[in-house]
């Protein structure tokens, strides 16, 4: 997937810069960058709604004021679920009996804004909101077949979190956040439908 390659390349370049300049107090002036592992669970979705840690979040922001940051974000998440053997009436005379593996993949990206407190302290909490688009792929794997449908939707995600910088002068620390997300994606596979995707999750990562 091309998006994945660009994402990894961007993250890799960012990491090289971060590790190559350990003496700088901040990689880019008046900015922050987060790279997070993400664990999420879809809510009110009867398709692949098991909690999963197959997710990452990448975001950065510019301090437009001492407390407010604005910047881009992109994240991805896959949730999986095993479905026992069952008989599905596909309509118009078609009937299928099989076991399945379900996968729900989400790739939201857009703009993130934060209000930050205590930006000179070790513990720096914030509240944030992400707005953007969400690409989602809903897949059923059965027999030797992958049947899927993809969709686009509007995405919004409020979150609360904090960055912890052991040495505030050296801006390299830990990031933690709780988030809720809502996307307007709609798609169908076999007899299954997804109408809006809600998630609740946790992010833990690094901040610099």
């Amino acid at each position, binding site marked *: *997937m091309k*998006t*994945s390659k660009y*994402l*990894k390349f961007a*993250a*890799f370049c960012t*990491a090289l810069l*971060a*590790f190559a300049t*350990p003496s700088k107090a901040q990689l880019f002036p008046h900015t922050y960058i987060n*790279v*997070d*592992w993400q664990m999420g669970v879809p809510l009110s979705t009867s398709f692949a709604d098991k909690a*999963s840690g*197959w997710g*990452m979040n*990448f975001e950065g922001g510019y301090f437009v004021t001492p407390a407010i940051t604005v910047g881009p974000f992109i994240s*991805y998440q*896959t949730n*999986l679920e*095993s479905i026992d*053997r069952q*008989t599905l009436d596909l309509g*118009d*005379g*078609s*009937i*299928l*009996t*099989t*076991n*399945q*593996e*379900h*996968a729900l*993949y989400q790739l939201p990206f857009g703009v993130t804004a934060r209000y930050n407190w205590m930006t000179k302290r070790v513990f720096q909490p914030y509240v944030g909101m992400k707005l953007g688009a969400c690409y989602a*792929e809903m897949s059923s*794997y*059965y*027999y*030797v*077949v992958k049947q899927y449908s993809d969709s686009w939707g509007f995405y919004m995600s409020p979150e609360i979190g904090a960055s912890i910088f*052991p*040495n505030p002068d*050296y801006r*390299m*620390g*830990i990031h933690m956040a709780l988030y809720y997300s809502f996307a307007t994606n709609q798609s169908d596979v076999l007899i299954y439908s997804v109408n809006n995707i809600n998630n609740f999750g946790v992010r833990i*990562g*690094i901040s610099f």
Partner: protein
Amino acid sequence: MVKTLRYLAYALLAVAFSACQKEPSTSDLDNDYLVYTDYDTSVDFAAFETYFIPDSILIIGSNYEAEYWKDDSAQQLIAAVTAQMDNAGYTQVADKAAADLGIQMSYVEKVTYFVGYNNPYWWWYYPYYWAPGYWGDWLGWHYPYSVYYGYTAGSLLVEMVNLDAQAGENKKLPVVWDSFIGGLLTSNSQVNLQRTIDGIDQAFEQTPIW
């Protein structure tokens, strides 16, 4: 502390680079067979009374000549279909010219061939399949519904043709019910045979027309 954070950063980046879209493990999908059936919803299956079934199963393989499977295992599979048809209230006849329905069974031995087709005439292009002329004076096949098959090694096809349909040089023989049973191959031939019989039973059980 900074050193620890740097190790954490390396670990996160390793995770990020390892996968974007996670594919599920499909190894468990091999543990069971798949049954797909389809039928013509406009046909009154109660109007049929008799059926004819050949004493062999066509093998779809890599040979250029048609091969037929006739041994004891094949007879057990044919018997499983016969039992289900009898249970459905149809009567087997020895003369195909006198039958209302014809049953043709095919086993995919080697080839892998996927079909997802809305054109009901696609059989014209598949070699060494059951010939429409076997059943009578028809030219080609006709599926009154969309056909979606996955032809992989170890699959069984069971199809029911309407022998009461109008025949003629330009007429096509309608397939009014079909089933595809996949995932039948294991290293144990007895397991394979039992799976196939179970698949046949499931194909009839899940079809609500009899």
